[in-house]
């Protein structure tokens, strides 16, 4: 996923967040004043000793709110079970430009600034207590929401007791971060408030929002992308009990950064309950003009990509002079890998509530991009950004789709018309039929081989991305990246990010191709990878600083060696076959081995063993959960249907036709974490791209059939030749 200006941001984030954050206190009462002290925008301490952590990043289930709260608790010196967690609003003024959550960046980006902010707060509290006790600051420390005296055991002051002084002190010139040995939570599997809420069913998702006079909206959208509304008849819809009003929704243009815009033309039914709105929508009579996309299908797009491959292309990135080396041998091995469109299918359907009051707008919506959404709402309404509030409660899954704000735009457009709060809820069908999607892909790989069938150089030409787009290529075989393949004219379906974004087709190609190269060279696929990593150089990521760090082949090699041991690589021969993959994503690394069997052309996955290096694992239980979930996600994309398009219409409308992994299909999963004290790095996506190739490689081991297309259906496997 493309990030905006991340470099500027990260350098600013260090101390920039602490500026202008001291709130003036206006307390003249002689009683203990009720102080709400906000020394920075992450924390609020009240004189009743409540400490509230304000989570700036979006909680989508990946556990960011818990991870960050643990960092805050440790650096400040409060206990986790006393720390309240609130979810912040979209705000560049408060959080700089780092708030939007994507590319598994949450913890990685906020970690340094959050620690500094908390260490500063701690220093102020300690200084205030020291002043009260008239002793040196070095004689005090923070723990459990109190400042303690080192010289007199048991002597302590609660945070609340020193706020009056603390809030008047100047920011300390120097702060000291805690040493890892002082961490009480970081590095442990801590159960956070988000888990507690979810286990009670009380998570405040935006789909639960209810406001006085709120109308519930359902929208019938044009089923073909870039089609238009010809006419509609609302007579029957208006007869449905509970329906209040029917309104046309004018489309918004897809913006150059396609996170914004792309509201489809539609007809909205506003009612006094979600159900009435859904029923009203069913009763609408609508004529659409389908436009040019009404003639196209998935197959058309695959053909367009294949045709585009025939157009000459130039190498945009040419590592270690790959193109020259490539020309030295006439022996070339080629493979093409195909993957279909995909839907995010988050369990909480897209929804947003908006209240346009003329001079200001307030939005409640689980979004991954509260800042981008706020800017967009300002753009749409013509109001200043300061007049727009975006509340960002936890979401029932995001996976990239909630980085795009079309669903919020719809609620704002409708509330602007009716001037009462409007909650737009997408039906499940809407989320499949008229959404934004992970694009269809076709990736071309070629290797020139020497006399012993060893690869000399690789050429890659894929279909999502732009020249220079980040690809995590760790091996020592020289590689050249060519122009990306294009469609003839525009999208058939609008694009959304999807868990791991471009890394999924990239991983499918790279890690299948590495297996094929090993097979050509008559080598064990796991050992072959290790060999190809042995002399690989560190890849500098200076062109894409949001990636966070350089790419270290040695780390990936280490995960491979570990997974070989943990999964008993190659020692089993009991009807269970293994496939391996190794992937990096930003600054995390995962190697995995899949154990499968094939019976009647059905692939059964018994177990997946994975090893992750994500730097310091702040919360190991959550790190493992992310990898478990990513594996399940990858398996759905490998073994289940995907999205197909016929005559512009998506063919999958609900979970019956877009099936996902269910508990019966779920393999055992074992996740091991590499011990590390490096800066924590993302874990939400790195586990996805290696899944499809690990399975396909195992299928090859089991059947001798090389499948280069997703999903692997029984009929595909049956018709394939070994």
């Amino acid at each position: 996923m493309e990030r905006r200006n991340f470099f500027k941001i990260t350098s600013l984030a260090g101390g920039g967040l602490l500026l202008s954050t001291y709130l003036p206190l206006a307390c003249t009462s002689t009683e203990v004043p009720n102080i709400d002290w906000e020394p920075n925008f992450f924390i609020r301490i009240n004189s009743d000793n409540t400490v509230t952590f304000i989570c700036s990043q979006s909680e989508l289930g990946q556990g960011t709110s818990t991870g960050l709260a643990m960092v805050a608790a440790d650096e400040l010196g409060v206990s986790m079970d006393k720390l309240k967690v609130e979810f912040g609003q979209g705000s560049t003024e408060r959080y700089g430009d780092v708030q939007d959550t994507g590319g598994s960046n949450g913890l990685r980006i906020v970690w340094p600034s959050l620690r500094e902010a908390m260490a500063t707060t701690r220093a102020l509290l300690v200084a205030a207590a020291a002043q009260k006790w008239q002793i040196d600051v070095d004689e005090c420390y923070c723990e459990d929401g109190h400042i303690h005296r080192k010289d007199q055991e048991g002597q302590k002051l609660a945070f609340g007791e020193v706020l009056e002084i603390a809030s008047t002190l100047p920011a300390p010139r120097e702060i000291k971060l805690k040493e890892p040995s002082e961490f009480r939570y970081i590095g442990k599997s801590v159960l956070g408030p988000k888990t507690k809420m979810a286990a009670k069913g009380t998570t405040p998702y935006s789909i639960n929002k209810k406001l006085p006079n709120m109308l519930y909206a359902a929208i019938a959208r044009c089923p073909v992308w870039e089609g238009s509304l010809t006419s509609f008849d609302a007579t029957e819809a208006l007869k449905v009990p509970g329906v209040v009003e029917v309104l046309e929704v004018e489309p918004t243009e897809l913006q150059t950064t396609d996170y914004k815009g792309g509201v489809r033309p539609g007809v909205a039914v506003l009612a006094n309950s979600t159900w009435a709105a859904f029923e009203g929508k069913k009763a609408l009579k609508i004529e659409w003009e389908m436009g040019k996309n009404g003639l196209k299908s998935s197959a058309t797009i695959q053909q367009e990509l294949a045709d585009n491959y025939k157009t000459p292309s130039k190498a945009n990135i040419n590592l270690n002079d790959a193109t020259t080396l490539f020309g030295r041998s006439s022996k070339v091995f080629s493979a093409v890998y195909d993957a279909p469109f995909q839907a995010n299918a988050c369990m909480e359907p897209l929804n947003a509530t908006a209240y346009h009051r003329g001079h200001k707008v307030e939005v409640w919506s689980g979004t991954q991009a509260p800042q981008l959404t706020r800017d967009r709402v300002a753009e749409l309404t013509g109001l200043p950004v300061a007049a727009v509030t975006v509340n960002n409660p936890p979401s029932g899954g995001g996976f990239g789709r909630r980085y795009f704000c079309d669903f919020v735009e719809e609620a704002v457009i409708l509330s602007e018309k009716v001037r009462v709060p409007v909650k737009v809820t997408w039906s499940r069908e809407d989320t499949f039929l008229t959404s934004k999607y992970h694009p269809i892909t076709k990736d071309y790989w070629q290797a020139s081989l020497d006399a012993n069938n060893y690869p000399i150089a690789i050429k890659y030409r894929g279909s999502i991305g732009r020249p220079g787009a980040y690809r995590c290529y760790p091996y020592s075989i020289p590689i050249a990246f060519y122009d990306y393949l294009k469609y003839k004219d525009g999208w058939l379906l609008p694009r959304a990010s999807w868990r791991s974004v471009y890394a999924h087709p990239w991983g499918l190609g790279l890690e299948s191709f590495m297996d094929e190269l090993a097979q050509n060279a008559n080598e064990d696929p796991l050992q072959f990878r290790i060999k190809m990593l042995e002399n690989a150089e560190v890849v500098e990521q200076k062109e894409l600083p949001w990636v966070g760090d350089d790419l270290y082949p040695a780390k990936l090699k280490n995960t491979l060696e570990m997974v070989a041991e943990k999964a008993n690589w190659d020692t089993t021969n009991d009807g269970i076959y293994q496939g391996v993959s190794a992937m990096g994503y930003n600054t995390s690394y995962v190697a995995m081995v899949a154990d499968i069997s094939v019976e009647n052309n059905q692939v059964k996955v018994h177990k997946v063993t994975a090893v992750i290096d994500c730097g310091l694992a702040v919360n190991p239980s959550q790190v493992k959960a992310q990898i478990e979930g990513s594996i399940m996600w990858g398996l759905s994309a490998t073994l289940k249907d995907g999205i197909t398009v016929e005559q512009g219409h998506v063919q999958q409308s609900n979970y019956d036709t877009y099936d996902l992994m269910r508990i019966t299909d779920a393999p055992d999963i074992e996740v091991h974490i590499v011990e590390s004290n490096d800066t924590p790095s993302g874990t939400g996506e790195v586990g996805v791209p290696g899944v499809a190739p690990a399975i396909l490689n195992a299928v090859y081991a089991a059947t001798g059939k090389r499948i280069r297309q997703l999903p692997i259906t029984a009929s595909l496997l049956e018709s394939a030749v070994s």
Partner: protein
Amino acid sequence: MINGELLEVDAHDNMPLLWALRDVLDMTGTKYGCGKGLCGACTVHVDGEAVRSCTIPISALEGKEITTIEGSAVNPILEKVQDAWYVTDVPQCGYCQSGQMMSAAALLAKNSNPSQDAIHSAMNGNLCRCGTYVRIRKAIRAAADNLDQNAN
């Protein structure tokens, strides 16, 4: 009766229980996922059976006893299930989990020591896009063990 309380719902007869709970009674623990009985997010108990509230109109429920995720105070098994879900760190986004826990509680009420197959057949109608299945299996076993200990 919902969670032991006699409630009257002012809504259209055909309104599915799901929407009556969520939009009329403000009991938002029960979730909308698919509206077609395909995902299990809306699972509640009607007279002890796990059912999909998105497909039952309220008119069919007169005199029935309904338990929702909010009903752990009146349903000790559900309470144990919720505890097991918490300590096993099952939920990710959590959206599917009300339904998962309701299905699990109904299973454990009938079968306090379910085999893997029994767990699978009781839980297969509950989708989780976050992919928490491995931990769901673990949590059901933990809840079963816990119930077992209590019984002894």
